[in-house]
């Protein structure tokens, strides 16, 4: 059965869940996920989510003379939050499915 829900993998759901509270850096997401997200793949997933329009990102403002590359902050888009909400609602509906009664 096909649904009208956009594609959302479990990792993407977790990231949207974590970002729903506040904007975060990639490494902060890894820390907040308590081991569920890996340092090597979280940025690839975030890049893919940005392509899909689930999250948006921007680089932090660096003070003059700052060392290193500017870090990138992520936050969910309104569309991403709607998709997350729709998936949560779908999951709740599936849980409430009535059991078959045997005669």
């Amino acid at each position, binding site marked *: 059965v096909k*649904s009208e829900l956009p594609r959302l993998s479990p990792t993407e759901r977790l990231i949207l869940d974590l970002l729903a509270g506040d904007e975060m850096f990639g490494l902060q997401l890894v820390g907040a996920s308590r081991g569920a997200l890996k340092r090597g793949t979280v940025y690839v997933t975030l890049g893919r989510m940005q392509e899909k329009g689930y999250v948006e990102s921007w680089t932090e403002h660096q003070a003059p003379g700052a060392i290193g590359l500017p870090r990138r902050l992520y936050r969910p888009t309104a569309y991403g939050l709607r998709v997350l909400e729709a998936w949560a609602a779908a999951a709740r509906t599936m849980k409430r499915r009535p059991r078959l009664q045997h005669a």
Partner: protein
Amino acid sequence: MVPGQALHRIASAVLPRDICDRVIDSQLADFQHEWLLSDGIAWRARVLLRGYAAFWAALMVSLIAIGATERDERKILLRTFVMSIAVCGIATVLMLIPVWRITLIPSQASPIIQTMFRRLRWVMVLNWLPDTFLTAAAGGLALGIASGSGPRLSTRSIRNVLTVAVVFSALSFFTGSWIAPVAIYHFRVAALGMRMAKWPAEMTIGELAQSQNMLGYHLRWAFPWATFALATFALSASARARGARLALVIAACGGYYYWVRAGAADAVGRGTFSAFTAAWLPNVVVVIAACALLAVPLKPDTTDMARG
């Protein structure tokens, strides 16, 4: 000196810029920030180890993702061109069958008549072949795009397909306007041994203008660009469902072909359009339809819930 500068150069050399900016630089920036915050040899060593491991993992995953996309792209493009050639070949044969049939050799005719008919048949086929091939090729590329590609085509592939269409259109123009008419006429003279008045298909573009066949003249300019116009239309339809895009492209090709074969002459004969307008109208309509198709929104990407 913060670590990661050499890694940044490596990633810049092997990955496209947008992926490097979005994925690798984000990872390296967090890595460098963590390293700057770290204190003590053990902590720094752990940060370095994790940072380097994360970099190579991110680089590998990105490279695999790009490789998969390019393989996919190559497959789609290959399918597009194979389908184009197949459609072109089948359409050419189908369109030449009526030409072949009207020159069927009478079985009880004398050997001289039979020889004449045999030669006439090849003259007729050759007479129709360039026109038929150009028509088939114009529709073939569009149908190839519609059947072989999908929403996954990248900007680079779209550019490649359009370049092929433009090159083919230009070649069609030169072939249809000069090379084919001259070749057909000389073949007829050689095969039948007669020097009669030239048929329209045997006239070069300049001779058509001299003979006041203005619709034929403008069609020689406009028709080769059908390949480009229909390919543009097929590309704009390629993001749609397979059935929808095939139906749209078949309708566009059918409409175009009908107009060129019958509608244009009829409209010019009635005085509805000038020869120039009648010749260029289908190209303009098809390109406008392609733009209009892009403006019609698509349904969002959907998938099976069970796969989530």
